[in-house]
């Protein structure tokens, strides 16, 4: 998709592909593709909107829209915008892309569930670099203040951002302790071990009285040897030869 589009974010998409796959295909998210706005659905907010290709792939394969649409990513006139537009794509809960805003939106959704005494859960996926935005911590503060145990955040901790290693650009360490200090229940997991992810998701669901954050250790560009751990692949599209090589390694073809 990204190769055909000629632009996009393969690195951060691949780092969270296993997480999104586990959510959508591991019977975790309670969604009805035929009724994308079913009021009782679980919400999933992709705060790191640049990973849109993975979300679109998951939504299409779950039946929210035709897989035939996927090659139109980033094309003129396509609903598959470079960053998710919830007015254009069924199953997309919020229009994201300006980093740091998704957790606040998720807090609002979780509050609405509490008001309505509804049991839906709100999941939000953030990047690690994204946690440098101050709004994330405003939202983190409010989530624990309101005791939103129906809110589960996942941090795709791939340690890279556009300009380099997160630790070099603006260190987040100790990330887990920061969330703990903000009143969250913190879980950690290998973000590429789907079985472990499923396990941790269940643990997160079972936590009562506070919001949960899952810090998922990931590798940027996971599954494609020449992309793995390379910041250069944050926002660059592969050429035709690289696409072929990548798809072969990912065993898609």
């Amino acid at each position: 998709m990204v190769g055909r589009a000629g632009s996009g974010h393969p690195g951060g998409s691949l780092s969270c592909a296993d997480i999104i796959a586990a959510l959508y295909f591991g019977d975790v998210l309670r969604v009805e593709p035929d009724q994308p706005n079913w009021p009782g659905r679980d919400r999933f907010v992709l705060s790191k909107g640049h990973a849109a290709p993975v979300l679109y792939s998951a939504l299409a394969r779950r039946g929210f829209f035709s897989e035939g649409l996927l090659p139109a990513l980033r094309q003129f006139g396509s609903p598959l915008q470079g960053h998710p537009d919830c007015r254009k794509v069924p199953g997309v809960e919020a229009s994201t892309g300006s980093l740091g805003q998704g957790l606040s939106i998720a807090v609002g959704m979780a509050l609405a569930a509490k008001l309505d005494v509804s049991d839906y859960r709100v999941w939000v996926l953030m990047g690690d670099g994204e946690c440098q935005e101050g709004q994330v911590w405003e939202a983190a503060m409010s989530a624990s203040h309101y005791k939103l145990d129906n809110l589960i955040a996942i941090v795709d901790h791939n340690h890279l951002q556009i300009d380099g290693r997160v630790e070099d650009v603006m260190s987040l360490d100790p990330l887990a302790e920061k969330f703990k200090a903000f009143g969250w229940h913190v879980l950690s997991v290998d973000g590429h071990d789907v079985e472990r992810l499923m396990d941790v998701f269940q643990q997160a669901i079972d936590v009562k009285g506070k919001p949960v954050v899952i810090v998922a250790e990931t590798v940027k560009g996971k599954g494609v040897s020449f992309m793995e751990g390379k910041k250069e692949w944050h926002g660059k599209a592969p050429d035709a030869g690289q696409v072929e090589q990548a798809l072969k390694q990912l065993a898609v073809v």
Partner: protein
Amino acid sequence: MSEMKATRDAYGEALVELGKHNPDIVVLDADLSSSTRTGVFAKEFPERFFNVGIAEANMMGVAAGLARSGKIPFASTFAVFAAGRAYDQIRQSIAYPRFNVKIAASHGGITVGPDGASHQALEDIALMRVIPGMTVLVPCDAKQARLAVMAAAAHDGPVYIRLGRAKVAPALPEGAGFEIGKGLVLWPDISGEHKGIDHICNHLQQAARPGKPLFDVSFIACGITVGPAIEAARTLEREGMSCLVADMASIKPIDEDLLAKVAKCSSAIITCEEHSVIGGLGSAVCEVVSCIHPVRVVRLGVNDEFGQSGSAEELLEEYGLTSRHFCLSAHNFPGSMAKMPGSKPVFFQQFLG
């Protein structure tokens, strides 16, 4: 006439009224609930009130999430913090997905007073007006504020309502309604009750002066300047000038039909607003009349500068926003405005010499 009342007071009361009838109404504030008057709602419906603390960006995002889940959130803080600090969140999280969030921003304009420039939003109308799909309302008195809040709640989509700190005298006649996208002609007051511009023009046409437009000057005003504009028109008429005053509370969408009619029957237009002359009501009026029926427009407001501390009255005097200034502007029109005390129309000096 009834008592002076701030538009923010009317807002608090309207919220309670709405809350009683609609369980989906929720209210958010960022530690200013006593000033914005959302505290009145909080007292009545504590379970539907969220004070997010001093965190405006998060407040707008939370409001977006609540709206996405079917609630009708009213998010309040001072206009400087709403339109300024949380601009990006309003643009990205609320307006782009067209979520049904109402941003009710109090303390708009210079009449915030003693807090000074840091708290005087003079750019908020411009900032909100430029966002696609955003409705922008600036009510002129307490009654209109209540009607604007009701209209905003009934409207599907994001709305920005600018409210004031200072008490204002009622400016609207009995029975005046409010509709998003509609302006109101408040002067000439030919029958004691509000009439549309067609009615007024037909009525006055009988006494029309051949070869001259019906009105020497038409004031288009919003917010706290509407009352003084009517007062100015009354004074000017006694001096022999014919005037019209239109209230333009709905700045976006703006009443293009009314503006076209006003432009066609006026020698000149003066816009009045407690906002920068760049990007606010004056600009919106120019954008419309320049392509429908060009007529000379003078924009009265705060020129390209920040405000300062002082009482509301002192500041209105300093920045040239009293009925006396409006009269002076009409007298001098279209001559040099630079003679006016407190008014430094840098743009017009270049053109008018």
